[in-house]
């Protein structure tokens, strides 16, 4: 080996060793540092200030901020966090930097609206974000859909939801069922039938496996709500007729109120506990509003996916 080659090899090996050591040391420093997570820091909280500082490259900066939103939300969601402190300002900065970034409004509103730990649990902020999107993109009918969804399911305001669907339905290219949704909500605000109609439409209008799976999940939960209502009516009828609460399903079957033991959409028998109908495994139905065990409120159950679906374009 010549002297030059020896020197070069030594330098290369030394460089690699030193770099590896420095990486190791940085990781050690991270472990002993204050554990305030980096993603909780908003270096510049003002959207307008960030826009000014972008020197015209606001689109690129918006993409970077949007990526940060996705990473932040993903990390918090995975950690089943109960608060998403900087999600709303991050989304505000992103959409101020690029008001045409439609995915930021669509997905951002979902992130904001869903109850913790699925999301930030701030449907009002979600509605504000989508309204901002509509202001900048009045022809994007999907944003009216999102707004209608938030008002209907999260804010329980069917009148405003119907108005949002109605406004969206007037945009050229909007899905025809936007008009139907508007009418249905205006007539039967909040009913299970309306929800079933909507999720069936979504299921039939998309090929995306994750969206289809979510729609099926929602439809199963709606089926549970509907089943529990019917079963509870039968139990109440039995109680009235016999003056006692039925201890189990066989009593209802023998009295002719039921033909067989009722099964939930996952195939498990419904439970009858102290005259009250409930599901056997609440974890399987994250969106049900009826049939939950006593003390458990709707929305308490973490679902396999809390994401709202967006109809295909």
């Amino acid at each position, binding site marked *: 080996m010549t002297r030059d080659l020896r020197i070069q090899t030594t330098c290369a090996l030394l460089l690699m060793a030193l770099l590896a050591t420095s990486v190791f040391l940085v990781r050690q420093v991270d472990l002993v540092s204050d554990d305030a997570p980096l993603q909780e820091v908003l270096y510049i909280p003002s959207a307008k200030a960030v826009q000014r500082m972008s020197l*015209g490259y606001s*689109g*690129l900066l918006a*993409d970077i901020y*949007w990526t940060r939103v996705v990473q932040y939300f993903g990390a918090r969601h995975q950690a089943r966090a109960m608060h998403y402190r900087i999600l709303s300002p991050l989304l505000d900065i992103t959409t101020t930097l690029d008001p*045409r970034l439609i*995915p930021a409004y669509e*997905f951002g509103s979902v992130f904001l609206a869903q109850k913790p730990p699925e999301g930030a649990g701030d449907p009002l902020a979600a509605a504000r974000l989508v309204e901002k999107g509509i202001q900048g993109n009045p022809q994007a009918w999907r944003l009216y859909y999102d707004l209608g969804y938030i008002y209907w399911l999260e804010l329980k305001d069917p009148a405003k939801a119907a108005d949002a669907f109605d406004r969206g339905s007037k945009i050229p290219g909007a899905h025809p069922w936007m008009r139907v949704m508007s009418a249905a909500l205006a007539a039967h605000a909040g009913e299970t039938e309306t929800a079933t109609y909507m999720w069936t439409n979504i299921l039939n209008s998309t090929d995306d496996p994750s969206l289809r799976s979510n729609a099926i999940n929602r439809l199963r939960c709606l089926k549970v709500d509907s089943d529990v209502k019917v079963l509870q009516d039968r139990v109440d009828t039995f109680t009235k007729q016999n003056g006692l609460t039925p201890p189990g399903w066989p009593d209802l079957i023998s009295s002719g109120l039921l033909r067989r033991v009722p099964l939930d959409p996952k195939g498990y028998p419904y439970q009858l506990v102290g005259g009250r109908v409930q599901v056997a495994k609440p974890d399987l139905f994250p969106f049900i509003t009826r049939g939950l065990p006593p003390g458990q409120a709707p929305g308490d159950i973490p679902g396999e996916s809390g994401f709202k679906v967006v109809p295909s374009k």
Partner: protein
Amino acid sequence: MIGRLGAIAFNTYREAVRDRVLYNLILFALLIVGSSILFGQISLEINRIVLINLGLSAISLFGIVIAIFIGIGLVSKEIEKKTLYTVLAARPVRRWEFIAGKFFGLVMTLTVNALLMSVGFFAAVLYVSHKLGRGDLQLVTAIYFILLEYVLITALALLFSTFSTPVFSSIFAFAIFAIGTFADDLRGFAQMANGLPRWLMTGAAYLVPNFASLNVITQVAHDVAVSPKLILLNTLYVVVYTTAVLTASVWIFERRNLK
């Protein structure tokens, strides 16, 4: 005259290439390929938008940085190396020809650079979108506007190079670029003032180079068309403004005592 201008321009181009300016293309290629893969995985639904924003911003920024760092040395380096005296004294080259030749040489370098980066950029767009359509012509418009940016900043860097040191010239050039991106805001601020300050601010706002209207990257990333009128007006503006800046450069350079 054309021959002398061409010789200086070509020589400037050759020097820039010899200075390994085109090495930035490697960095650009890595950036584009890396971003198209990485952002597709960590972002939601905006893979193509990211690619366009990042690709065009990189073409713009790389070119501007090169324009400034080469532009500031175009005259001062020649003075420092004493080669300017040979050119001006020993050959029949006028001072304005020297300035114009240097300007065209650097613009030529930047154009070649931008064209090569554009080839890489469109290849990445093709990779992400699987096809190129008529809508992608907007991307060509954005690249044309970036070339106009280069022309403007090259002229400004050259102007500073005629009377200042390279360090101060680069500071001035970056500052004027930053101020130019705020051109719209400056006019807005001027509207909020009254009396003499309003007139002074309005004058200043119209005097700074209008880089703001040359950046349509975000717009084309969303397939929003750029109006032909804006293309025409921006072209005319850059031609007029650049000529004004070059005139000022020649005027200063003519008055400089080079002995």
